[in-house]
């Protein structure tokens, strides 16, 4: 009897509890300092109003978060908001019934959604071919060049002029090694994202057909002559010991912070660790190939965006809309940008940061933004998309590793990567 009355009491009180506050779950992959930013933004939003409660949950690395979200969706337990990294964008876009476009969520929530307020390069990447914004850009980054000023000085290089082109990087790296200023001249994280996808965009070369896959199923084009030349130079430098390979993702950052290598190309989001190491560093733009026509063009965004899952209640969507609206506000964006090294996503936030004098004190922090939005993107530089980008990157990494180990030339490596990649795309898109 008591149990039944408790059950009834629970049933009666349930609607009231739901009415009081709607819970919005947000699965993310931000650890360390960036994780603290997530917690702060969520708790500030919760304090700013009383209708909704955003609950951020850390789900591990980017791929782990994506997998957790997919498994949860299959079990009917998907979160309301899920953070998905750039590489997973194609996967999410292919899942028509699993997601709800952000533009739709915002307009249904009663907010006017004006695309022109957002940085064009970023919004373009997260939009459907028809131009509808599908996910909310949360953290965007861009690859830049870092260099160790102490090592530059020891090697007799100009500490105030970072190398601008790849040829200059190779020359500086050789000088670092030959002068004995450091054991290794140059290292790089993410050969796929930086030396393949961004190399293509920055030098205005096609990465694949169909506007790099944004307009349809892509066919890889990364075995062009400039790619072959670039990778052969990299392979030769590896043989001389001037270039040191660190690993497939961001492992090479350690080779730089430990003072072993003088120059590094890495994401702008990696700045935190470099600052923390206490080294005397400088920042430059991502190098380009001076023989490429129109280079430098613009770089493409990396990082992650927030996806809204399908099949939720209207109240939940209203809450998500309110939260995204809050996220777009200038002070929030400015906080996010200044704390994390990621880029602001609205023009207003960028202007406000500029006006605050932040870039005068930290000129390097503007580099990734200028790189990404300095020029109107061409069809080679809006970003890359494939239904199976993680797999394509795996294939490229395998071929690059064989090349750097001296088992094959750059030409063979890139031809293999294109052949195997295209076969994988065909399978993934149901061919």
């Amino acid at each position, binding site marked *: 009897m008591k149990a039944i009355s408790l059950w009834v009491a629970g049933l009666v009180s349930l609607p009231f509890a739901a009415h009081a506050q709607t819970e919005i779950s947000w699965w993310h992959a931000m650890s360390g300092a960036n994780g603290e930013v997530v917690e702060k933004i969520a708790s500030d939003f919760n304090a700013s109003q009383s209708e909704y409660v955003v609950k951020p949950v850390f789900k591990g690395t980017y*791929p782990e978060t994506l997998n957790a979200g997919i498994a949860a969706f299959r079990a009917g337990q998907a979160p309301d908001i899920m953070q998905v990294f750039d590489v997973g964008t194609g996967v999410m876009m292919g*899942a028509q*019934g699993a997601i709800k476009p952000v533009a739709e969520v915002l307009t249904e929530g009663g907010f006017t959604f004006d695309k022109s307020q957002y940085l064009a390069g970023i919004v373009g990447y997260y939009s459907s071919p028809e131009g509808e914004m599908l996910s909310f850009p949360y953290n965007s980054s861009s690859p830049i060049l870092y260099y160790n000023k102490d090592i530059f000085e020891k090697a007799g290089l100009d500490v105030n002029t970072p190398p601008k082109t790849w040829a200059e990087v190779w020359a500086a790296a050789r000088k670092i090694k030959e002068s004995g200023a450091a054991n290794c001249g140059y290292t790089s994280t993410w050969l796929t994202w930086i030396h393949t996808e961004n190399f293509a965009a920055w030098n205005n070369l096609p990465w694949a057909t169909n506007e790099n896959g944004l307009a349809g199923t892509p066919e890889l084009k990364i075995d062009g002559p400039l790619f072959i030349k670039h990778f052969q130079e990299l392979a030769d430098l590896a043989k001389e010991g001037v270039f040191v390979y660190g690993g497939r993702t961001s492992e090479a950052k350690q080779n730089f912070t430990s003072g072993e290598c003088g120059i590094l190309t890495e994401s702008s989001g990696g700045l935190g660790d470099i600052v923390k190491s206490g080294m005397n560093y400088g920042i430059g733009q991502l190098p380009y190939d001076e023989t490429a026509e129109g280079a430098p063009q613009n770089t493409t965004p990396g990082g992650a965006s927030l996806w809204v899952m399908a099949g939720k209640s209207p109240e939940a969507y209203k809450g998500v809309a309110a939260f995204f609206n809050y996220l777009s506000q200038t002070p929030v964006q400015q906080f996010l940008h200044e704390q994390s090294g990621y880029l602001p996503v609205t023009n207003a936030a960028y202007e406000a940061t500029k006006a605050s004098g932040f870039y005068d004190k930290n000129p390097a922090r503007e580099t990734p933004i200028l790189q990404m939005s300095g020029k109107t993107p061409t069809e080679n530089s809006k970003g890359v998309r494939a239904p199976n980008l993680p797999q394509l990157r*795996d294939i490229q990494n*395998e071929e690059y590793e064989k090349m750097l*180990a001296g088992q094959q030339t750059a030409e063979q490596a890139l031809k293999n990567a294109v052949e195997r990649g295209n076969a994988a795309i065909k399978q*993934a898109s149901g061919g």
Partner: protein
Amino acid sequence: MNRTVFPHKLLPWLLVTPQLAITVIFFYWPAAQAFRQSMLREDAFGLSTSFVGFSNFRRVLSDPNYLNALQVTVIFSILVAFCAMSIALFLAVQAEKIVRGKGFYRTMMIWPYAVAPAIAGMLWLFMFNPSFGTLAWPLRQLGIAWNPLLDGEQAMGLVVAASTWKQISYNFLFFVAGLQAIPRSLQEAAAVDGASRRHAFWTIVFPLLAPTTFFLLVVNTVYALFDTFGIIHAVTGGGPGKSTETLVYKVYNDGFVNLIMGDSAAQSVILMVIVIGLTAFQFRFIERRVHYG
């Protein structure tokens, strides 16, 4: 022989129910799902599903990368099982000879077993990292071009060493127990007959250890095939190239990184068949030669 007859019909079933439930929920159910999925072609979110019969299997078996993974697995498993068992046997025999501090040595030997595979992997990764590893530096001083990030054979050596190190404790424990079960009198008799220690070991101790060795062979094979995933994931991630990608790692990579569910399920079904076949083979042919005291 008299057949034991239980008066109750229900009670025996009731008593084995928990075990049956565990087997059904954690073995038969997932295995059946893997079978089902291996015949389907499905996107990651499960939004569109179509039945494709055996075409996933056909594609997997004709994929040169799969054959490569098979080869890597065979080499890796034989090396790990052989090294882990022979080193453990050697250490167990040596530890038996110690007069003072036996307990201390044994405890130290068993210690690595308590380390989680992923953590063991990280330890080895840091010790042998080509740029800042504490043990990579002396290797380079010796004139070895140490770089497991690009050299496939070195990477294989590293994951074999890490996996072996992790398994030695377990094998050691069983070998010590096995050695203690061998009657002292047999060895003493051999000594009286003038057999050398080495001769006595190979003709008396080793054959009497056969049940333990056989048990460990089965366990180590399964360990090398499955439990080493964490170590490989942490140390090499299957690279460089595909030189340390084992069958289990490929199942994970195709399913959870590349999101090709059908291929991944087909591979796990093949793997299940391989393990069943291997264990059956071991029991059928090797166990015959095992002498249970």
